[in-house]
């Protein structure tokens, strides 16, 4: 019995080691943080007709003095494209965050900015660049959405 427990623990340790040794991302430009994020009914029925669904954003609240915004960046299921999200300060254009490619039906669960933000309201632009599913080097039509980060 003790041997079986030992073997089970050893197998688990090996599995964990193998998992932790995996490199982040897959070398194809897919953001390593992108994860399946399907919401029943939250899809794009017009995707087959070449339509992209783009959300608009409300204020993003975050804790002042930190660098993390708990807002998911979603590429809606059914969108016929990859998305790359770039968050910039509207004044000056400083890039606060840029994702890798996010496949349809996946999302970045939360974003970590390039720096911390002190308390205040920061007008931002979320740029959504889109790319072909067949050839991710091929850009498609995109969008820019304005909103505010509110750090308090």
């Amino acid at each position, binding site marked *: 019995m003790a041997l079986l427990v030992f073997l089970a623990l050893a197998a688990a340790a090996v599995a964990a080691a193998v*998992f932790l040794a*995996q490199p*982040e991302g*897959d070398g*194809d430009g*897919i953001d*390593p*943080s992108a*994860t*399946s*994020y*399907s*919401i*029943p*009914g*939250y899809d*794009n029925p*017009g995707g087959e007709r*070449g*339509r*992209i*669904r*783009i*959300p*608009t*954003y*409300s204020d*993003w609240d975050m804790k002042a003095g930190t660098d993390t*915004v*708990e*807002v*998911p960046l*979603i590429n*809606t299921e059914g969108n*016929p*494209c990859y998305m790359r999200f770039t968050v910039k300060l509207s004044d000056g254009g400083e890039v606060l965050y840029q994702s890798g490619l996010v*496949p349809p039906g*996946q999302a970045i*669960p*939360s974003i970590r900015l390039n720096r911390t933000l002190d308390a205040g309201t920061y*007008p931002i*632009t979320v740029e959504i660049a*889109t790319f072909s599913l*067949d*050839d*991710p080097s091929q*850009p*498609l*039509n*995109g*969008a*820019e*959405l*304005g*909103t*505010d980060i509110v750090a308090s």
Partner: protein
Amino acid sequence: MRIKTNRNMGRILLAGACAAALAAGSAVPAFAVDEKTGTTNVTYSSSQQVPGTNGWGFEIPTAIPFGHDKSVTVDASVNLCNMTPGGSVDQIPEADFPTGGVELSLQSANGFQLQKAAAPLDPVAYKISYEGAAVTKQLFDTNVGQTKTVIGKFTKTDHTAVGTAERVGDAGESGSHTDTLTFSYDASNTTPIP
């Protein structure tokens, strides 16, 4: 190109996200992993609205592919949409939508010309015509150039601008000619909710 996903990585990330969700309250998503398929479903305990979004958005064309025949037009329509699962445009809550409507703008990277990626650029002019009650600017062509220009003001009743794209010029060189359109919306341009 080979695209692969790492389901194990997703599970680990979602475990962390789940803990954050529980700590932050009921308005944030709750995560559940389907162990059979490795996929993740997201539900909302108090709202079907994704955090950080307004619950509504726009549908835009992925691409506007022109063919050899100039007389064949291509759909370039844009419309307001309800991003809440199962909801239609008229079901967007009043509290979530600016009372004065919302403006959507359009900008062309090449000034409404298709061109090659490298010289000779061989620009080929095209135009997009928009129709509908929401539309305030009907014609987008080389005269608009690269200037970001408002297509119109969209409301829950006037939610669609029917767009028709038409190639005007002819290519003098062989090879791919492209342009990229950017559709933009800025909340600061809307009428504040009283």
